[in-house]
C-alpha cells in the first residue's frame, strides 16, 4: 500500500505506477495510453467517456483496474428501456419480524467504479439520473438522499457506429466528463498475443491488490499538489481562449471547466510519469482527451474532413 509521509516517498511513486501498469498488462495487452488516461481520470476524481468499437476490451480493462485498486465495480448496460430506478435503486417491500417494510435496494450506481456501457442508448431521463450522480456523488430517491461511496467514478462508453435509435449525450453533459478516451484497434503483435491468450487453456493470472481506498485518496490529494509554472497556466488558459476565437474552425469553444480539467489532467499525467512538476509535454498530451468532446467544429471544418483532434493539433502548434 502507498503511504506518503515524506519527500523520500514521492520518489517511490514512479515505481508504484510502474508496478500498477505491469499488473494491468497481465490482462490487458497493449493500450498503455488508454490505461494511463483511465488512471488519470481516477486520480483527478473525475469521470471519463470511452469511445470505441465493440470488442476492444473496455469492460475487461475497467474490471482489471477496479480489482487492482481494490474498488467495487459495477456495470450498467444501457438500453432504451432502462429507467432511472434501474440504476439508482428502488424501494421494495420486505417482510421483517412479521411486518412488511419498505427497504431501499441499492442499484448498480452504488459502487466505486461504474461502467455505463453504451450510455447513448439510455433515455435522456436515465442519462440525467446518472449525470446527477456523477456531479453530486449522491442520489435522491423520494425524499431521501443517499451518499455514494468515495471514491466514485463513472466510466461511460459510446459506440461510434450504430447510431440508430440512440440518444447522443448533449454537449452540456459531455462537458462533465474530464476526458474522452478513444480506444483504437490493437497493434498486430498485441492482437497475436490476445488471440493466443484467449483461445488456449491459459490460466488467467491472479491480480495483486496494489492500492486501497486510503492510498487512492492520498494520491488524489498529491495530484492537486503537483506544482505548475505560471507561464504554463497562462498557456492553458490561452489555449482554451483560442477555441472560442477560432471561428473559422470551431463553432463553439470550450468552457473554463476545460481549463481546470486540462491543468488537473496534466498534473496527474506528470505524477504518473514520475515528474514532480507539470511539463509542457503533459499539457500537450492531455489537450486531446480533455478538449476533443468540448469543441464543436463548424461546417467548413467538417466539410474539409477535419476532426476535433486535427483542430486541437492546429491550436497547439500556434
Amino acid at each position, binding site marked *: 500500500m502507498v503511504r*506518503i509521509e*515524506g*519527500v523520500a516517498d*514521492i*520518489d517511490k511513486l514512479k515505481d508504484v505506477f510502474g508496478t500498477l501498469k505491469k499488473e494491468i498488462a497481465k490482462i490487458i495487452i497493449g493500450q498503455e495510453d488508454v490505461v494511463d488516461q483511465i488512471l488519470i481520470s481516477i486520480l483527478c476524481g473525475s469521470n471519463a467517456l470511452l469511445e470505441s468499437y465493440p470488442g476492444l476490451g473496455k469492460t475487461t480493462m475497467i474490471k482489471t483496474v477496479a480489482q487492482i485498486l481494490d474498488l467495487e465495480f459495477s456495470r450498467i448496460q444501457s438500453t432504451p428501456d432502462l429507467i432511472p430506478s434501474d440504476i439508482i435503486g428502488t424501494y421494495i417491500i420486505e417482510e421483517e419480524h412479521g411486518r412488511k417494510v419498505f427497504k431501499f435496494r441499492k442499484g448498480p450506481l452504488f459502487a466505486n467504479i461504474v461502467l455505463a456501457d453504451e450510455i447513448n442508448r439510455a433515455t435522456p431521463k436515465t442519462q440525467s439520473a446518472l449525470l446527477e450522480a456523477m456531479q453530486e456523488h449522491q442520489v435522491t430517491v423520494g425524499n431521501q438522499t443517499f451518499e455514494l461511496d468515495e471514491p466514485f467514478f463513472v466510466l461511460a462508453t459510446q459506440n461510434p457506429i450504430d447510431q440508430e435509435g440512440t440518444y447522443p449525450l448533449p454537449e452540456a453533459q459531455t462537458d462533465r466528463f474530464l476526458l474522452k478516451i478513444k480506444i483504437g484497434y490493437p497493434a498486430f503483435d498485441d492482437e497475436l498475443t490476445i488471440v493466443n491468450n484467449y483461445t488456449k487453456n491459459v490460466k488467467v493470472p491472479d491480480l495483486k491488490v496494489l492500492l486501497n481506498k486510503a492510498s487512492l485518496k492520498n494520491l488524489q490529494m*498529491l495530484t492537486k*499538489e*503537483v*506544482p*505548475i*509554472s*505560471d*507561464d*504554463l497556466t497562462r498557456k492553458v488558459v490561452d489555449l482554451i481562449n483560442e477555441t472560442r476565437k477560432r471561428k473559422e474552425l470551431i463553432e463553439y469553444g470550450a468552457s473554463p471547466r476545460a481549463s481546470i480539467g486540462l491543468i488537473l489532467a496534466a498534473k496527474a499525467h506528470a505524477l504518473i510519469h514520475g515528474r*514532480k*512538476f*507539470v*511539463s*509542457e509535454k503533459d499539457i500537450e498530451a492531455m489537450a486531446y482527451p480533455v478538449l476533443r468532446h468540448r469543441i464543436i467544429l463548424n461546417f467548413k471544418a467538417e466539410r474539409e474532413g477535419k476532426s476535433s483532434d486535427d483542430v486541437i493539433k492546429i491550436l497547439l502548434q500556434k
Partner: protein
Amino acid sequence: MRKIEKLFLELKLEVLKIAIFRAFLNSIIFFLILNLVFSFLDVAYYYGLVLGITFFIINAYLFYIQTTLKQIEDANPEVREMLRTAKDTLSDDNIMIRALHSEIVEKAKKIYSGNMLNYKNLMNRLIVMGVLVIATIFAATLRVNVNEIELPFDGIGIRGRFTSYGLDAPVDLEGDLLDDDNIYGEARIAKLGNDVIDLNLNPSMSELDLNKLKDEQGVTLGRMSYPVDVGTPKGSELSLSKKPVDSELVNAFYMKKIAR
C-alpha cells in the same frame, strides 16, 4: 533560508562569475588595443590600464544585470522547466513542492558556470588577444612615434627624420645642404647647441682634431650621441668659452656623418 532559496542565490553567484570572466576577457582586449594605439602616440601605459579597469567594471555590471534566469535555463535545458516551476512556486509549500526543490538542489550540482560559456566566443577572444599581443610587440620594436614625425614645408624641400635604435635608417635629404660644406662651419671647431665651445687644452695633452673623429666600434652616431675620440690640431690653442652657435649646423654635421 530554504535550500531552494539558497540555490537561487548560488545561481546568481554563478551568473556573477560568468559576468566577471567575460568582462575580464573583454577588458584585456580593450587594454591591448589601447596599449597598441598609445604606443604610437608615446602615451604612458598606465592610462590604458586605468581605462581598462574602468571598462572592466562597467562591462561586468552590464553583463550581470542583463543575464537572467532564462539564460541559465537555456544553457541547462534539463533543469529549465524545474527551475521555472520552482521560481513560480517559491511562496507555496506542500510535499510535492518540497520534493521538487529537493530534486532541483540535487540536479543543480551539475549546473556550473562552464555551461553558460560560449566556447566559440571564448576561442575567438583568445585569438584576438594573441594577435594584439603580437602586434604590440612588433610595434614596440619599430618604436614608431607619431609625435616625432616632422613635416614642415619651408621651400627647401621636405625633410624627415626617423630615429631607430639599432637600425641603419637611410636618410633622404633634399636641397643644397649636402653640397655646401660651408654651412657646417669650420670642421675643426665643434659646435654644441647654440654655443661655440673653445677648448683650452694643455699643449702637452692630446690634440683636438675634429677631422679625426672616430666612432666607437659598433656604435652608430645618432641623436644625442657624440664622438668619443676628440683630437686637436697640433699647435692650436683652444679655449672653452661660450659663443652663440646654430644648433642646426650641429645637427647637419652629424647627419653628414650618418650619411657616410
